[in-house]
């Protein structure tokens, strides 16, 4: 046998290595006793919640409020998880996802500010329901077409929604909607300008190089949703993201998840094996829409409390799809990673912000050449790749053995 390394492409190899590293982490975690697992999970959760307070050096954005960046990172991750259900699980290329994001945001805006003044937590479920119904209404006629046609129809949908809100006076037209209700503060009501309200206040860390110190000047009021501090919003959307992830996991590992996957792999065969494919495609579409609406609703009621048609350009749809593809379509952790990267990198490197689309395009091209499955593809994609590489290696070995 030859001792040389197998001549797989660089991308294939690094794909397998990164995947293996991830598997090692997952396996090491799974092999721990339950108590350690629970503690590890709790520690990870605390860390993720505390991230904007810890403000790790280098990682923190200097030029823009880090809490706000973390909020949009979580919002993008949530959107990517929702879109992953549609693209990654059911295999439906939805290029108009921003439309659902927009519907969720505008429902919240109209209900809490523009026409009525509902509290946010009452408007949120309505926004989710309205988006889901929108998803069904769009999906019912269009999910009968396949592949590229669906992409075109959804692309049109995203634009139609944006142009509609821009021209309908009842929705604020191009001026948008302002003063959207923030989530209700839990605890004491804020008394501007000095009392932030909330339950209690936590300080954040200040870093001098690598030496941390407590910054008691800037405290975050826990569960006080005001205009000054984005961190409570981050906590709220992070909680929503975690709940959605749990639901995603439960539904994926069931008959529903199998039906989605079978439909994605071979729609005709799935149908002939008794899967009502249309029903499941519609379900994926509506669920994805609802998660998009959820994220949009949080966005609308965020720190600025302002939305306008310009907040929902078609480009945003492309970024959402890119997040899923970059992360690894079909893997929820990949989707989160993709969403987080797409939102975080331009904020961290704002000096290059003017070039961000150019850089982004280049990065996508590089990725498409060397890692078409994304950064963190589903485990089975990696398994199939590894098996392929093994067969290649065997064939190569046989060939060389035959020649020698």
């Amino acid at each position: 046998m030859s001792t040389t390394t197998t001549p797989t492409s660089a991308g294939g190899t690094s794909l397998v290595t990164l995947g293996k590293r991830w598997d090692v982490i997952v396996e090491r975690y799974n092999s721990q006793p339950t108590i350690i697992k629970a503690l590890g999970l709790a520690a990870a959760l605390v860390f993720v919640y505390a991230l904007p307070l810890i403000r790790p050096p280098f990682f923190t954005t200097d030029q823009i409020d880090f809490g706000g960046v973390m909020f949009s990172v979580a919002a993008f991750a949530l959107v990517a998880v929702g879109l992953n259900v549609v693209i990654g699980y059911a295999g439906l290329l939805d290029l108009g996802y921003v439309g659902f994001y927009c519907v969720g945001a505008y429902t919240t805006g109209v209900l809490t500010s523009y026409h009525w003044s509902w509290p946010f937590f009452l408007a949120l479920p309505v926004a989710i329901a309205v988006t889901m119904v929108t998803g069904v209404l769009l999906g019912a006629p269009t999910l009968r077409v396949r592949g590229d046609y669906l992409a075109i129809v959804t692309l049109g949908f995203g634009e139609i929604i944006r142009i509609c809100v821009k021209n309908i006076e009842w929705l604020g037209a191009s001026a948008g909607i302002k003063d959207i209700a923030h989530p209700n503060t839990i605890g004491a009501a804020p008394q501007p300008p000095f009392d932030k309200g909330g339950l209690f206040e936590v300080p954040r860390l200040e870093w001098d190089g690598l030496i941390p110190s407590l910054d008691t000047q800037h405290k975050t009021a826990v569960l006080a949703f005001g205009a000054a501090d984005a961190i409570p919003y981050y906590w709220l959307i992070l909680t929503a993201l975690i709940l959605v992830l749990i639901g995603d996991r439960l539904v994926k590992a069931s008959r529903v998840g199998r039906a989605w996957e079978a439909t994605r792999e071979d729609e005709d065969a799935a149908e002939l094996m008794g899967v009502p494919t249309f029903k499941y495609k519609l379900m994926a579409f509506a669920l994805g829409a609802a998660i998009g609406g959820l994220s949009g609703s949080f966005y609308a009621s965020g720190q600025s409390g302002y939305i306008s048609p310009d907040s929902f350009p078609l480009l945003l749809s492309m970024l959402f799809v890119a997040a899923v593809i970059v992360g690894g379509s079909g893997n929820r952790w990949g989707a989160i990673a993709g969403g987080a990267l797409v939102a975080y990198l331009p904020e961290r490197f704002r000096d290059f912000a003017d070039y961000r689309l150019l850089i982004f395009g280049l990065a996508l091209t590089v990725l498409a050449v060397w890692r078409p499955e994304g950064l963190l593809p589903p485990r089975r994609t990696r398994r199939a790749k590894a098996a392929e590489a093994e067969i290649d290696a065997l064939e190569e070995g046989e060939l060389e053995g035959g020649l020698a």
Partner: protein
Amino acid sequence: MTGPKALLEVDNVTIRFGGLTALDSVTFDIREGEILGLIGPNGAGKTTCFNVMTGVYQATSGQVRFDGKVLTRLKRHKITKLGIARTFQNIRLFKSMTVLENVMVGADAHSKVGFFDALFRLPRHRRTEAASTARAKEILEIVGIRARHDELASNLSYGDQRRLEIARAMATGPKLLCLDEPAAGFNPAEKLRLMELIRRVRDEGYTVLLIEHDMRLVMGVTDRIVVLEFGRKIAEGVPSEIRDNPAVIAAYLGVDEEDAS
């Protein structure tokens, strides 16, 4: 003639694609518990016939009745639920899913578990999941690939992929199992094992419709044979009758074959 009752009746079915008549007034039936062979030269209409039964095509005229129910205008997944399952001539597995998951998709055909059962892990979800996993493993045991249940379907050998196709179809709990050229690409040894498998499947209580090119396989395993040529039925009978039927020899085996034998 009194035999077991007809499970599937193809009654005077005609299919036209534009000017082409793919099936012309074809009538035959499949009886419960038998292995029926459907043979004919290339382009005789075997697969078309198959597609009518499984709802892929709609008959231009005539009826297909299954268990007394008319299949015309029924959705494809509903036909599967009624009890007709099939395999594909060109293998169409769910490649990125594991062997077990492929079979579970079939087993899900009668599952009533929905989104909320799964989201809240209701008892029905747990029960159904356990039952279909057990059933899927049992079927994999029958077709002989139980040991490989955790492999990805795409990583199986060609022969095992064909077996998996049969397993997946069996898992839908069919009364009638339709195999579309299951021996395509097999060597003689594999064909022998396939014949055993088909008999075993029948002994498990399935009725089998077999479309096949290989005459030895068909003659060796079927109870009755229907012969199609140019969309018409030219013969029907037990294998020995078919073997000696001059019309079949002329049409299907060809004159050269007759000279050679």
